[in-house]
């Protein structure tokens, strides 16, 4: 999905920072970035200044299980890559600068350690990742493609590898991998040039040496990089130093009774730092027998006695006033490879806190009595960073949730977005449910304007019924049209499930069938029995599953004998089975009709049953507990729906059977107008309040705007056919793809008309009733969803403060609004992986911008509003510029395309019914003068021009990350004409900007990727081809 359509996320984080229980840590080589992985699967990128100030920048979503290890994946400092793995075998390659997912893969086994290493192959140096984990080999993986190239295997007593280190010997010019297995056997593999050249599917490489060193429970091993002559092995009960030549024991130090060591590293040729599981660290000076420079080196070989504890230089205890921790912290040591050469001990804990100690070069004056305590250099937690911000990070309905007694708003604990009504439903921790127009509430939170003065804005409806926290919400009609569009289902911590009528706000029924808080509400698939079809399935924390009939208002089945929490619900509609998968791997098969337990199985059979359900129902509505998975599924489903839609449009001719289409078809057609904005709630941890991500689909916004333009009761523009001619006329030749967009526009119009006519077919009485209800529901607020979405989106994207005149035009004539603070955007990359900027990113931004300023005056947050996002990364710039230009161009072609005026308050008028006297029509027709119209058009064109051409000059090069040529080139043939035109304009502007030399560099850069022969073209090659082609054309032109 991310590959094709242009979707931009905007995040509303809320006051509470996401839970970040740190499970792994990494500091990049230049010491300017810290990466942390957490138990819930997210990765946080923190910026660090040379003065050791730390600030969280972005959160990466993609892993569905705890992050087990992190490693750098590139050697160069200008293109920093990061690889991460999770408990369930996922492996991801990320770009550190913008959080883009470059590559991802999944293996059956979990990795517990990764190390990046560059092997020399001939004259080239190839990046490799050496992985070990819950398997007996060391896998050597290509650092760019993540493919397993070969494996290092043990001949003698193979077992899991608990720790590993790589060293390049200067004497023999060979790379040596040293590892310790869980049973305490040290293994040595030598990677010869021949081995490194090996491709996939080759014979395994066997170990060179295998020696038992009797180190049970090995935690880490590391070479002394200063002398290359000693090896430090840390086990939970002792740490030892070995000679790295023949692995003879030089010294051994036991841990104190209650502590267990968890890692260590050499910090100098004669000093080691060792840390414990509970977060204390100690720096020891090694005895002379361990120092290769000393004459006593190896003097103790063969007679090492335990208990002789070397002198302690420093002890570093964790501060006692810390928050309660729920699991042991992670400690690591890193040293800078360039100025200012910090030696850093860094610790991440379960409260999302990073603590940093800078270890001084020189040891303190020799003190005989006791070792000195080292002071903390820096410490910050995610929540602290959030708390420091003014204004606090906005939540989606903060203005409606303020409590008089406290600063913190009432937390939103569950939410669902109803696209057909543009309405967001939020369940809160006090048991109330709020219905609010999504764009309106987002505008309040993100943008400045007159709405700031109104209390209780936007109009909303509150449903009260739950006694305590609302845990889940479901709007069944959105999943399947067979449900009543008035019903909303909510589940709470008070064990109850409530059905609401959202139009009247009435509570229809309370189910109290479960014995625990409700954790999930699911819609059964289409082909279930009619009785089940009108049910929703509820899952509770007492490990029970219920089928609650919305029509009969009773529970028709309760499956409750599960011993373990329910992880997945699947369906076998043809057999009338409900299949429950539990967290321990057991599967229970229930008969839906009788409520009888048919089978309970484990092992292979269980796996087979679950898989069989997937085959039977292609789009099985399984839902997992993990929010990241849910999101991923939501994204995939969305894209599937879009694909399906595309296929349908291909088949459907825009024939005269406009109204002949059957009713069943209606449900399958997701209306484009509804997808322009999707509000997805997310939580990183089940205990967190919801945060909300607004996904803007640029293509859908454009289609929707065009649709509305076509529906406008203006005789010159009313027919779809003229619409196709007007904008499409510019590109008559090869616009087959673009034509499809217009078909979609027409389809949507057709849909609207059809729906309207279908309405009429129904009983007059029914119609009457519905209209009453509609009027009730709409009494909340009548507003134009499309224009509101565009307003919100454009206001967020515009680079404010660069051109005062244009800003005035935007505010006064076009009706855009200035954001309160820089907006947290996100970036969607491959496979639904996503990077979301934390609200604290602006601090890093301020610092960077201040550095650029010659006079060094501090910039205020308001000064960087809007400009900031164009300095984040090249990929972000590309996406944002494409969106803003294509939308501005679309709006330019519309009549009355301003966000001020009466037309914003009303939903677009439907095409008049045949035979109905046109009464309302007059009122909605705008009476704007042609002069006004041309001014508006001019405004949009200025806006587009500024973003297309002037931005690099206005911002200055150090604050502007130019767009990526290959991303633009890929959009050269985009199916959406507006996006295509924007991409072309931007590409040409960028090529002109980089000048002759830049173009030459580009050609040199991409030329090697050109295919040797034309068939079998990989995506990289296509990019290369496209970029080169465009470059050549341009170079000729100049």
């Amino acid at each position: 999905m991310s590959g094709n359509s242009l979707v931009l996320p905007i995040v509303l984080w809320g006051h509470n920072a996401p839970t970040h229980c740190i499970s792994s840590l990494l500091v990049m080589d230049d010491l300017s970035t810290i990466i942390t992985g957490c138990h819930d699967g997210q990765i946080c990128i923190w910026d660090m200044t040379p003065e050791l100030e730390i600030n969280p920048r972005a959160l990466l979503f993609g892993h569905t299980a705890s992050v087990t290890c992190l490693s750098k994946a590139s050697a160069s400092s200008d293109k920093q890559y990061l690889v991460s793995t999770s408990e369930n075998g996922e492996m991801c390659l990320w770009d550190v600068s913008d959080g883009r997912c470059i590559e991802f893969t999944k293996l059956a086994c979990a990795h517990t350690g990764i190390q990046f290493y560059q092997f020399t192959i001939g004259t080239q140096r190839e990046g490799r990742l050496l992985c070990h984990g819950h398997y007996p080999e060391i896998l050597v993986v290509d650092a760019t493609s993540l493919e397993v190239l070969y494996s290092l295997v043990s001949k003698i007593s193979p077992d899991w590898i608990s720790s590993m280190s790589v060293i390049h010997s200067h004497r023999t010019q060979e790379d040596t991998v040293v590892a310790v297995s869980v049973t305490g056997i040290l293994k040595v593999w030598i990677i010869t040039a021949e081995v490194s050249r090996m491709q996939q599917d080759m014979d395994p490489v066997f170990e060179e040496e295998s020696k038992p060193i009797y180190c049970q429970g090995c935690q880490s091993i590391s070479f002394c990089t200063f002398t290359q002559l000693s090896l430090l092995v840390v086990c939970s009960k002792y740490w030892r130093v070995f000679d790295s030549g023949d692995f003879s024991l030089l010294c051994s130090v036991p841990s104190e009774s209650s502590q267990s060591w968890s890692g260590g590293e050499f910090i100098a040729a004669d000093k080691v730092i060792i840390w414990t599981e509970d977060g204390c660290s100690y720096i020891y000076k090694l005895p002379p027998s361990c120092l290769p420079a000393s004459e006593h080196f190896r003097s103790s070989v063969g007679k090492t006695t335990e208990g002789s504890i070397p002198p302690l230089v420093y002890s570093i205890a964790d501060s006692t006033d810390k928050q309660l921790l729920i699991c042991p912290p992670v400690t690591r040591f890193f040293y800078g490879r360039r100025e200012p050469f910090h030696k850093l001990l860094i610790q991440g804990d379960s409260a999302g806190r990073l603590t940093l100690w800078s270890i001084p070069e020189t040891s303190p004056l020799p003190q005989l009595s006791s070792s000195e305590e080292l002071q903390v250099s820096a410490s910050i937690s995610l929540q602290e960073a959030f708390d420091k911000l003014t204004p606090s990070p906005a939540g989606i309905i903060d203005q409606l949730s303020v409590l008089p007694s406290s600063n913190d708003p009432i937390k939103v604990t569950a939410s669902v977005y109803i696209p057909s009504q543009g309405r967001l439903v939020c369940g809160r921790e006090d048991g109330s449910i709020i219905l609010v127009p999504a764009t309106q509430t987002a505008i309040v939170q993100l943008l400045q304007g007159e709405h700031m003065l109104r209390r209780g804005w936007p109009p909303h409806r509150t449903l009260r019924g739950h006694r305590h926290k609302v845990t889940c919400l479901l709007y069944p009609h959105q999943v399947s049209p067979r449900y009543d569009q008035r019903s909303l289902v909510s589940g709470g911590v008070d064990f109850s499930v409530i059905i609401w009528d959202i139009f009247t706000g009435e509570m229809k029924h309370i189910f109290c069938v479960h014995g625990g808080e409700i954790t999930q509400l699911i819609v059964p698939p289409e082909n279930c029995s009619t009785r089940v079809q009108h049910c929703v399935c509820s899952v509770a924390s007492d490990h029970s599953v219920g089928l609650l009939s919305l029509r009969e208002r009773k529970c028709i089945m309760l499956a409750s004998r599960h011993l373990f929490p329910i992880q997945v619900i699947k369906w076998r509609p043809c057999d009338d089975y409900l299949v429950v998968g539990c967290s321990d791997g057991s599967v229970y098969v229930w008969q839906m009709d009788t409520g009888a337990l048919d089978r309970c199985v484990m092992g292979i059979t269980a796996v087979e049953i679950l898989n069989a359900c997937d085959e039977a129902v292609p789009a099985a509505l399984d839902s997992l507990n993990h929010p990241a998975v849910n999101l991923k599924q939501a994204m995939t489903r969305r894209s599937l729906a879009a694909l399906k839609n595309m296929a349908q449009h291909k088949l459907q001719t825009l024939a005269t059977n406009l109204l002949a289409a059957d009713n069943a078809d209606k449900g399958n057609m997701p209306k484009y107008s509804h997808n322009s904005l999707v509000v997805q709630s997310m939580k990183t941890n089940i205990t967190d309040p919801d945060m909300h991500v607004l996904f803007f689909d640029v293509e859908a916004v454009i289609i929707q705007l065009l649709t509305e333009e076509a529906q406008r009761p203006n005789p010159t523009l009313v027919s779809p056919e003229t619409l196709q001619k007007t904008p499409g006329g510019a590109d008559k030749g090869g616009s087959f793809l673009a034509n499809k967009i217009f078909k979609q526009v027409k389809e949507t119009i057709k849909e609207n008309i059809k729906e309207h006519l279908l309405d009429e077919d129904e009983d007059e009485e029914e119609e009457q009733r519905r209209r009453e209800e509609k009027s009730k529901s709409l009494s909340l607020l009548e507003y134009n969803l499309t224009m509101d979405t565009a307003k919100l989106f454009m206001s967020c994207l515009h680079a404010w403060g660069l051109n005062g005149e244009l800003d005035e035009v935007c505010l006064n004539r076009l009706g855009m609004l200035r954001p309160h603070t820089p907006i947290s955007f996100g970036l969607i990359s491959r496979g639904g992986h996503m990077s979301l900027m934390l609200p604290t990113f602006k601090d890093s931004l301020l610092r960077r911008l201040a550095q650029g300023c010659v006079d060094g005056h501090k910039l205020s947050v308001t000064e960087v509003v809007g400009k900031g996002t164009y300095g984040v990364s090249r990929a972000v710039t590309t996406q944002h510029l494409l969106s803003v230009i294509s939308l501005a161009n679309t709006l330019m072609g519309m009549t009355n395309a301003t966000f001020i005026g009466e037309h914003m308050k009303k939903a677009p008028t439907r095409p008049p019914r045949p035979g109905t006297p046109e009464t309302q029509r007059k009122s909605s027709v705008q009476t704007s003068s042609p002069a006004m119209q041309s001014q508006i058009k001019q405004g949009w064109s200025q806006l587009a021009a500024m973003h297309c051409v002037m931005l690099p000059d206005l911002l200055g090069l150090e604050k502007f990350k130019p767009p990526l040529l290959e991303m633009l080139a890929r959009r050269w043939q985009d199916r959406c004409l507006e996006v295509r035109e924007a991409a072309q304009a931007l590409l040409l502007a960028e090529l002109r900007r980089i000048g002759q030399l830049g173009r030459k560099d580009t050609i040199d850069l991409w030329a090697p990727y050109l295919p040797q022969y034309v068939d079998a073209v990989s995506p990289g090659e296509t990019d290369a081809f496209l970029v080169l082609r465009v470059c050549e054309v341009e170079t000729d032109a100049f």
Partner: protein
Amino acid sequence: MVMLGADQSAISELAKMTAASQIERTVLEEEFNWLLKEEVHAVLKQLQDILKEAARRFSMPSPSLEGQLKPENFILGSSTMDQVKGVLTLQGEALTQADINIKVAKSSQVMHFAFRDDKQWKLQQIQDARNHVNQALQLLSSRDESYYFKTGAEVNKLMDAVMLQLTRARNRLTTPASMTLPELASSGLMKMFTPPMPGDVMVNFYINLSKLCLTVYQLHVLQPNTTKNFKAGGSSVLHNPGAMFEYNNTKFEVSHVHKVECVVPWLNDTLVFFTISLQLCQQLKDKISVFSSFWNYRPF
């Protein structure tokens, strides 16, 4: 003394309720403290004992040979057919000896294969299960009786980590790796036998639940030009007759599949121990969760 006014009674009722809830809260708090202080450690102790017992099963010392694991012989057979018989020697996680007799259906000739003397076959499933149990034990031992649990979340986190290891350990035994036929053909297993295995026979060893299983596939070579209906099979634990695959540019079809098995009693014990421990963990988590809704309560 007793007020009879309706209002008063309502007020006293309310006062009683708040008082009751106050008492209730204190009782709950006490109970929760007991849970954290006493019950959690009791459960952890019980878990450790069970898992130590399970871990012991993986390394039964040999009574005669010092420092070596006890070798056990298993006779693999099936009640319904007698085409395949196997005698396997399991020593810890490794199969050290194997004798396999295959009666070929067409001719009544019996083929006999045994492991080469210098070879043994490691059952990765057993090693993985053992390592996972050891990791679970390590997690448990890091929190001994002297440790004071301060929050329920802390206990939950520990239980999650332990349960992850235990689930993995059990899954390794209950779900054998599914392999494709070419993967099986290229695995080192085929090169372990003397006399060397002919090209039209393949064997596979694995653990399914508590059973040690041996599968023998008899193959026949498909004509190179028969492209009719050739469809390479996917990966599976047990392939059915008729499954086809291509290996070394030759196309094969499975003609017969023989599966024989034998229960390994100590594996059965470990599976029972895993199941009991998992249930103990879950029960402890459930107990904690009863209080969690109480602690998270915030009046509005």
